[in-house]
């Protein structure tokens, strides 16, 4: 098993330590040198006794998706875990409590539903937890102990990892966790006969390392903070709230300003105000909040004020499905608001890319004095990935105001027509640098005008900025076979990982395939796509929306028929689904 690749789900009730067990496991695996990706789900109600699933994929190679099906299901709650059995693989493994305090009624025991071929390992989770810690709350740690024993995980390293995680907690909490882990570990070694082939030991994992284990929201917030964010104004909304939480803690420490506003309109207004004042500012929201901001997005573009909006997409329209995944805000991100309104749209495809994307967003907004929309989605916001500690942003991305020469000041033309569309601007307070900033069409000095010529020139100038941005954008990510291929998969945002993985699997199966994905949606790497398109017999565009918003958008660059894979399952794109489609059309 040199290419260890395991998807583990821990399923329990809220309050049973399900999510924290998943986190402990992914953290440890990452420290051990494995690539991980987690995507947990928990009840829509914040406090409830609903179902929680901690879903983690651990792999030796690069892990691009959390995996649609699981190899191992750890059931902390039978009823909830029964609901996860459909995603357990044919030869999947179930770890369950074989000695719960009370008998389950018929068909309410998870192991009772196992399909032939699946492997059950019964562990007396509750009993061992009580034995080790005096209560049944440490069942999650007992289960991790059992898991470690079954899959050849070094117990000493694991315990060290747990101790590091609980470092600042009381000793008895650490002891209770460690003892419960050991109880599960020892019991399993002594009592369970392993019949599955999975083992981590002997897989020659990479060198141990200290890495970040973070989700897309955290990476975004980290990037923004590193890029010198000064103000964050926002209104809570799933799935973007986490960014706001981080900002509320971190910004004040750095002398920045955090504001929870009365609504999203106010949030974007604050951001534009700060941008006008020369400070880097950002807001974060999801579809419904983004709609409210639409009018102000126009102002940022028209008045040429830097502004960054993070839109973490969720199931829509309207309130839709707050805790479900979808990629259906592309249309509004690209086209929302009134008028000819060029804006920058960046959609990172992986958690680690969120960091750089946030840096770039603030940089572009400041330098090009315009609106940048960072398009995340529920999956990217919540999926957890290991990544190296990012190096601080290149200084060229910091403090990038394009300021006028003092000689220009006596007759300051704030909206001077330039070749690259960027007009030097003053920061308010600069002597002689006063100007009108308005949402009305204006002349070079900012004075409202309505004549044909001015509007034409100004509209052109605003659009000209994109050529400069295009020159600075991150190149598309192209993987798979080189040269002519049968299938070319064109993907964007968080679906790109699944697309790359599917293409890799297809290639391994002998299908000639390649994958094109881009973080930059606007401006768009048109030529690169045309070049890619030329070597593909067929083009497949998978995305998590119904109408094919991305496919519709790129159609104009290629003018050729496309295969589409559109799904609105509320779940992340799965490589299995893309692979199936590839095999269908290949």
């Amino acid at each position, binding site marked *: 098993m040199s290419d260890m690749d395991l998807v583990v789900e821990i399923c329990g009730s809220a309050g049973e330590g399900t999510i924290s067990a998943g986190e402990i496991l992914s953290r440890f695996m990452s420290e051990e040198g494995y690539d991980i990706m987690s995507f947990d789900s928990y009840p829509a109600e914040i406090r409830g006794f609903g179902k929680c699933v901690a879903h983690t994929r651990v792999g030796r190679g690069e892990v691009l998706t959390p995996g649609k099906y699981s190899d191992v299901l750890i059931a902390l709650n039978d009823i909830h875990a029964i609901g996860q059995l459909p995603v357990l693989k044919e030869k999947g493994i179930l770890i369950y409590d074989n000695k719960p*305090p*009370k*008998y389950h009624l018929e068909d309410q025991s998870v192991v009772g539903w196992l399909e032939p071929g699946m492997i059950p390992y019964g562990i007396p989770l509750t*009993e061992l937890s*009580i*034995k080790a810690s*005096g*209560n*049944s709350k440490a069942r999650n740690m007992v289960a991790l102990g059992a898991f470690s024993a079954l899959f050849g995980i070094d117990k000493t390293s694991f315990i060290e990892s747990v101790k590091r995680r609980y470092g600042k907690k009381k000793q008895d909490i650490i002891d209770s966790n460690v003892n419960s882990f050991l109880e599960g570990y020892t019991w399993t070694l002594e009592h369970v006969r392993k019949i599955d082939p999975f083992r981590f030991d002997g897989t020659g994992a990479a060198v141990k390392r200290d890495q970040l284990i973070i989700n897309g929201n955290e990476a975004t917030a980290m990037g923004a903070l590193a890029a010198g964010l000064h103000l964050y104004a926002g209104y809570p909304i799933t799935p973007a709230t986490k960014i706001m939480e981080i900002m509320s803690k971190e910004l004040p420490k750095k002398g920045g300003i955090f504001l929870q506003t009365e609504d999203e309109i106010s949030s974007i207004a604050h951001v534009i105000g700060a941008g006008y004042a020369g400070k880097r500012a950002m807001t974060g929201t999801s579809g419904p909040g983004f709609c409210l901001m639409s009018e102000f997005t126009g102002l940022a573009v028209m008045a040429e004020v830097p502004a960054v909006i993070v839109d973490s997409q969720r199931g829509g329209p309207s309130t839709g499905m707050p805790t479900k995944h979808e990629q259906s805000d592309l249309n509004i991100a690209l086209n929302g608001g009134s008028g000819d309104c060029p804006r920058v749209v960046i959609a990172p495809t992986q958690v680690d890319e969120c960091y750089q994307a946030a840096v770039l967003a603030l940089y572009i907004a400041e330098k090009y004095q315009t609106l940048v929309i960072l398009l995340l989605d529920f999956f990217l916001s919540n999926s957890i990935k290991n990544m190296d500690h990012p190096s601080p942003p290149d200084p060229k991305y910091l403090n990038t105001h394009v300021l006028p020469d003092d000689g220009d000041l006596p007759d300051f033309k704030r909206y001077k027509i330039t070749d690259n569309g960027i007009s030097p601007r003053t920061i308010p307070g600069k002597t002689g640098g006063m100007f009108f900033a308005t949402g009305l069409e204006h002349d070079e000095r900012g004075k409202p005008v309505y004549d044909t010529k001015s509007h034409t020139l100004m509209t052109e100038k605003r659009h000209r900025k994109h050529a400069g941005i295009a020159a600075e954008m991150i190149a598309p990510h192209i993987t798979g076979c080189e040269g002519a291929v049968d299938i070319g998969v064109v993907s964007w945002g968080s679906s790109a990982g699944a697309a790359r993985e599917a293409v890799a699997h297809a290639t391994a199966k002998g299908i000639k395939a390649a994958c094109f994905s881009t973080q930059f949606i606007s401006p768009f790497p048109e030529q690169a796509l045309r070049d890619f398109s030329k070597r593909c017999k067929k083009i497949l565009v998978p995305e998590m929306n119904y109408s094919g918003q991305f496919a519709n958008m790129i159609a104009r660059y290629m003018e050729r028929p496309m295969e589409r894979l559109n799904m609105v399952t509320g779940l992340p794109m799965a490589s299995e689904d893309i692979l199936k489609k590839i095999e269908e059309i290949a």
Partner: protein
Amino acid sequence: MTIASETVKTIVYSTDPRDFGLVRKSIPCQNACPALTNIPGYIRCIHEGRYGRSYELNRMANILPGVLGRICSRPCELYCRHGESDLGKPVSICSLKRSAADLKSPMHRIMEGLYSPSGKKVAVVGAGPAGLGAAHELSVLGHRVVIYEAFEKPGGMLMYGIPEFRLPRDVLMLEIENILRLGVDLKTGVRVGRDVSLDSLLSEYDAVVLSTGCPSPNNLNVPGEDLENVYPGLDFMERVNRGEKPYVGKNVMVIGDGFTAMDCARSALRLGASEVKINIRKTEEYMPIDEQEKHEVKFEKIRFYSLVDTKRIIGENGRVTGIEFLRTKLEYSPVPPYRTASPMPDSEFILPADSVIVAIGQRSDPASISSRIKVSGSRILTADDRFSTDMEGLFAAGDCMSGPANVISAIARGRKCALEVDEYLTRGKRKIQVVRLDPVPSTDRDRSYDFISRTPMDTLDFDERVKPGNKEVEKGYSEEQAAIEAKRCYLCSLTYEIDTKKCIYCSACIDVAPRDCIKMIAGVPVSPDGSLGDFNETVKWNHVAAIAIDNERCIRCGQCYEVCPMDCIHVTKAELIELNKEA
């Protein structure tokens, strides 16, 4: 004294029927013990290392703890809560009793609550367990007691029925000695009905207690039973216990499924038999002996041969050569153990045998004492629970009035009979039963104790067993083993109760409950005897009158006690004790 529903703050002695009901239902082992031994109490003492106190707690109910700790048929363990199907195996109650006797100090002080001499004289006929129990209690109560024993040694079946490898005679004699030291006069070798008449005893003594047991073996009533080397089990054991070596040959067939049959088989093995079979009519499952005993028998390579019925014993020249059996099949019967075996027609087959021991039960023989005694079958007829016969001053206790029963029942009956005799002699009750309620500040137990598995008893190797000397097979627990086994006891005498006045119905206790021991109830009915019945459970919150702990399901793990945010769970030690009425 109305105690039951109120939480006790200090020690209280209650005679409320609800408290008697509580003790009866919540301490299943004690209730199953014919002598009502305070089992949680004495096990707790072992846990604390107080072996002497443990021994004395036993002695209050049973004057032969060292003996019963070895050979009791353990009715308590069948009911031990730890043995319920989801909880593991019962506590080794019996072996712990032996530990109390074994581990107590050799300087141990015997406690006796002696009453002043009453001037009354009582004769006890038979020095078996019932007679010894009666004699001891009567002496304590101040009466002058004379025991008439037909054999040359006291002990009855303990001395002549049970083999030495199960009960060393020094243990037996020491505990008998402790009874005799109260001034009991033991006349051995005197058979009432032959050497002295019952009538003369009745005229000489203020009361006479018959405790003559069941000395007459039952017969198969099949052809060939009179052949040489066919022994009634009781006679066989008596001869072995007298030190004789009856001929068994190599191939021994024992017929019967009780403790005596096992003793005969195991003794035959020690007399040199190489193949011993125990032939039973039903199956192992329905044998009236415990699993431990079955295990020991099998360990000694003795085989059970089930589903067979003896048709006749076959012989040549007057000596046994074999048995002709019929196969049987099980059939339902309305009385415990709910099965009978009936032979199947045309299923005869023959197995060879050098000797046959027939141990299929025994009966009492009142006619040999006096023809005037009224009988029911072969049992002496007594008034219900009063042990009195229709003859003035004549009482009967033990197997002679109950039919064959276990030793602990005989001791219990002897003692109860003595109390009846005392009431007859003094025209009043001097001892009464009460429930002692004692609030305790903690649950006294660690949850981890619940996961300790039953401590096996170390025994002799097979080779050691068959060596001459009849060495005791079971070695007894060491101090460490006893300490571990004692931890396993749930201490069911600790009863748990939720104070409904303080409970906030958060159900945190229900969440941590290890089984369905805490219930939402609409009410509790009162049984005809004044005790509380089973809870009326409900799942509808608007019907819930209280959240209550079912002490019959509770395993005293203390989880609820620890989790309760209101500290409204109280633990009370409830013990059945005997009080001196005059005090």
